[in-house]
């Protein structure tokens, strides 16, 4: 994505314009008893960009993306997809729209195999009308495909028919990441996909994210790993105390300043305009 494109007109209204926003949210609020996890958050995602979302622990990042993926229903606010207002009542709605998500707590079925987890909810069926009707799964093909999907991620996993609960922490993460990358048709959301990963494996996941972007899909990447964020993201969404504090341009701003904005040491208003992204 070129710098020229990044400076493209940015809609100030509530997504009514024909601006090229894939996803947009305005004024999201979610309360849990006394805790306000999302506190009037805005959000914007452009086509084929990698948008990093960063913020302190408990800032509300996971809650935000859960709202975007239908896993959580916000108390207030509006979400737009390609400019059209949507209201996801469940993850099924988001998935129908081609939005795939890697959740921070991974959401895998531990006793089931890697292949089954990869294909959960979209199993490969045997050919033939009877097989389709009865939904008979093609175990061999699922194993083969699973091996293919995981090939990009060399995680030293012996067999795709191993139950997920026998995997190491990082290997499990690999399964969840591979799943989202393989099936997304519209947007990929990843909540700390590299947190448990080694150096080598972390780089593989970054590569995978780039591949997804190069297919033309935008990626939302939540990460605490600043080098990763700066290496890969086109724009940085800084989340603070339940809302978006700033939208930064990683090519202009330093890592140190970014961290300062994130932790509140620098107020966003005090930043020079050229480090902001639009």
């Amino acid at each position: 994505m070129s710098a020229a494109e990044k400076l493209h007109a940015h809609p100030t209204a509530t997504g009514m314009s024909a601006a090229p926003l894939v996803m947009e949210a305005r004024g999201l609020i979610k309360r849990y008893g006394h805790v306000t996890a999302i506190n009037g958050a805005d959000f914007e995602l452009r086509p084929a960009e990698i948008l990093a979302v960063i913020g302190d622990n408990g800032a509300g990042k996971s809650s935000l993306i859960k709202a975007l993926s239908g896993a959580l229903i916000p108390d207030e606010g509006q979400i737009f997809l390609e400019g059209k207002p949507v209201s996801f009542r469940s993850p099924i709605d988001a998935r129908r729209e081609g939005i795939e998500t890697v959740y921070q707590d991974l959401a895998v079925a531990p006793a089931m195999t890697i292949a089954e987890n990869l294909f959960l909810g979209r199993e490969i069926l045997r050919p033939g009308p009877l097989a389709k009707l009865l939904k008979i799964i093609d175990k061999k093909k699922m194993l083969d495909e699973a091996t293919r999907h995981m090939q990009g991620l060399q995680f030293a996993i012996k067999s795709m028919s191993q139950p997920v609960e026998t995997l190491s922490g990082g290997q499990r993460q690999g399964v969840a990441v591979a799943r989202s990358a393989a099936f997304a048709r519209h947007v990929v959301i990843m909540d700390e996909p590299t947190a448990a990963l080694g150096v080598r494996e972390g780089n593989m996941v970054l590569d995978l994210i780039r591949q997804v972007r190069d297919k033309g899909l935008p990626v939302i990447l939540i990460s605490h790993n600043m080098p990763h964020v700066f290496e890969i993201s086109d724009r940085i969404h800084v989340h603070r105390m339940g809302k978006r504090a700033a939208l930064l341009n990683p090519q202009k701003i330093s890592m140190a300043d970014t961290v300062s904005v994130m932790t509140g040491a620098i107020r966003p208003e005090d930043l020079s305009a050229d480090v902001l992204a639009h």
Partner: protein
Amino acid sequence: MTQPTTAPPAKSGFQMPSLSTLGPLIALLLACIFFATQSDRFLTGNTLSLVLKQISYVAVLAIGQTLIILTAGIDLSCGVIMALGSMVMTKLAVEQGVPAVLAILLGLALTTVIGGLNGVLITRLRLPPFIATLGMYGIVFATTQIYSNAQTINNLPPALNFLGNTFNVLGVPFTFGAVLMVLLFALAWFFLGSTATGRHVYALGNNPEAVRLSGIFTDRLLIGVYATAGLFYGIAALILVGRVGAGDPNAGQTENLESITAAVLGGTSLFGGRGNVLGTLLGAIIVGVFRVGLTLAGVNSVYQVLITGILIILAVATDQFSRRKS
């Protein structure tokens, strides 16, 4: 200590059932050897035939129960649903003059609907399965008594008796009901292991949140599981009617525990997501073998209860022991 920590990781049933049903199988073999030393009438084809026909209806109930337990649920109402189904089939056919086949279909439809109702209570009202099916137990039990006026229905038309009829294999008589039972187990095993929906049942018991997040309609799936279980209860009703040759309104009061026992003996975890329906068949057979074997050994009824208790503990202890070694 609790099942989720002790259950071996490999029990998802994706592969051949060999490993997960090995434990109960060993226990069954040991029991058979023991009984064979106690009575020379034990090791005969007739014993096998007896066991199969005696367990047939409880085992079919246990198929439905296993489906439900795999989703981390439980069904206390299975036996009384079966009883209501058998009364509807027999009373319609004998007293209301409904053609037997139609009466059977109506009975099956009713048990399926009641099973589905359990699912609706659990998903829509978010009741714990224990409570929903306990409430249903009372409702269905009382309905059966009221509907049948506590009267047994005799003089059944042949279609209702059919599953109780026998055919000979090598001189040993087997009932059609027992054959149907075995077929249903094969079907359930195929469904759970080889269809997408079957795998979702396991996943649901494993991590319902993961299933929800992966875009599967969990409520619909769960209602489907309870309704399917209800259909199995209806088939069990038909087997029961054929076996007894009558519609018995007092049937089904202890079969809930018996079907759960078969499933758990067969290695299914009450916490859901782990187990195998063929294990359930083994579990049911183990109980049936105990009953026949102890009678052949001439054990007094009170002592049968005592020894069955001990054997159940030993059977599962063997199972656990064989797992720890492997």
